[in-house]
């Protein structure tokens, strides 16, 4: 089509653009409807799958984690509500609720020892002990999900990453980046001195003393004056490899 200059030509261009625009919207609307229809099919397939594999999902932590991933990909959260379809379908609500209670108990029981900071693996082992040998096994993934659920309820519980480890913090109060840094630097040996901290982190001695004093006061650190060179060391029970009582 040859464009002709002039008002008529301009008007025709506008009309053409308008036609393309409304045609594009039609396509989009149709796609969206198609996608929604597709999602409905996905979700009902997922429900059928969950029902069929209910026993495996309960009994096998690895399979359970994979199921969670699949749900997430489709945009379904089986833990979204304690009531409702998913809770009844899988009994998930009870499972994670119970797990939440157990992990909080385990954290409280060891709080005196580690100041309210517990390594994820140690927490999982403590929860397993509480559950007993006859119950379904739980994975670290399960614990993390249960903690996230508790967080939503405002339980004052949180997941903290220190260096290459994952810890569950169950005390209120601030676990700021400085404290995190101290424990990260102490992670390998399980302890650190004020001098080592100052030189490795590049902090002033006041800053070091302050953070260490805070960690000490919160029960997350203990002092050790018995080293051969008499240098005061700060130890962190939460970093101890699974020696909790």
């Amino acid at each position, binding site marked *: 089509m040859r464009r002709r200059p002039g008002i008529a030509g301009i008007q025709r261009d506008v009309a053409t653009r308008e036609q393309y625009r409304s045609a594009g919207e039609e396509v989009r609307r149709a796609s969206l409807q198609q996608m929604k229809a597709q999602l409905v099919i996905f979700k009902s397939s997922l429900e059928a799958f969950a029902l069929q594999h209910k026993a495996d999902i309960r009994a096998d932590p690895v399979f359970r984690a994979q199921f969670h991933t699949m749900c997430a990909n489709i945009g379904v959260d089986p833990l979204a509500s304690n009531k409702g379809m998913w809770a009844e379908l899988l009994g998930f609500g009870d499972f994670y609720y119970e797990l939440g209670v157990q992990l909080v108990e385990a954290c409280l029981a060891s709080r005196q020892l580690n100041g309210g900071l517990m390594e994820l693996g140690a927490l999982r082992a403590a929860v397993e002990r509480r559950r007993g040998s006859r119950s379904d096994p739980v994975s670290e993934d399960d614990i993390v999900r249960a903690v996230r659920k508790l967080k939503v309820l405002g339980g004052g519980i949180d997941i903290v990453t220190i260096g290459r480890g994952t810890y569950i913090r169950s005390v209120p109060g601030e676990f700021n980046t400085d404290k995190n840094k101290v424990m990260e630097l102490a992670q390998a040996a399980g302890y650190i001195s004020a001098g080592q901290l100052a030189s490795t982190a590049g902090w002033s001695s006041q800053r070091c003393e302050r953070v260490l004093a805070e960690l000490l006061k919160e029960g997350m650190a*203990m002092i*050790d004056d018995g080293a*051969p060179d008499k240098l005061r060391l700060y130890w962190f029970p939460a970093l101890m490899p699974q020696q909790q009582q």
Partner: protein
Amino acid sequence: MGSSSTFSWPYFYQYPPYFTRQPVKETADRQSGLWGSLILAYCKHHKLYVLSPSEDIPLWVNKDINRRLAPEAAVSFLDDLVAAGSALWLDGGAKARCLVLWRRLPDVAAAIASWAASYGMADSVMLLDELAAGPAVAGTELEGLHREVLLRALQVLEAQGKVKLFKGATPEEEGVKFL
């Protein structure tokens, strides 16, 4: 000493900071409780009755982690045991010798009374030395009882009207009559 079977050490014995008195009260209280229990268990296992805060024993010194509990700390933990009624200082303020009552005095008293009953000791008189060691108590749970513990347990029985203590001219002549 006593039993030769291995003593099993609690987790905190392997963790260096526990050998330093902690400044934070909550941690220090817990530390004292842990050490108190360890002291009682250690003495019970080895049938030890008297401890000195500065002696070179595995209780105060863990060679594996190269840590030693300072005598002042040991005194502090023993003081807490004394306050709880599980220990006594034998030397007043000097605090160099502590009698550890890993078996409560009333329990020791009951054991003596039970021994006396089963051996038909009513109306008999014995020297304290014979009660602590010798053929009369060989093989019984009274054997090897520390004299200080024995004396105090007998005082409990005396208060209960079950025995009468006699002082001799010398400590060797101290005796007891079972009523």
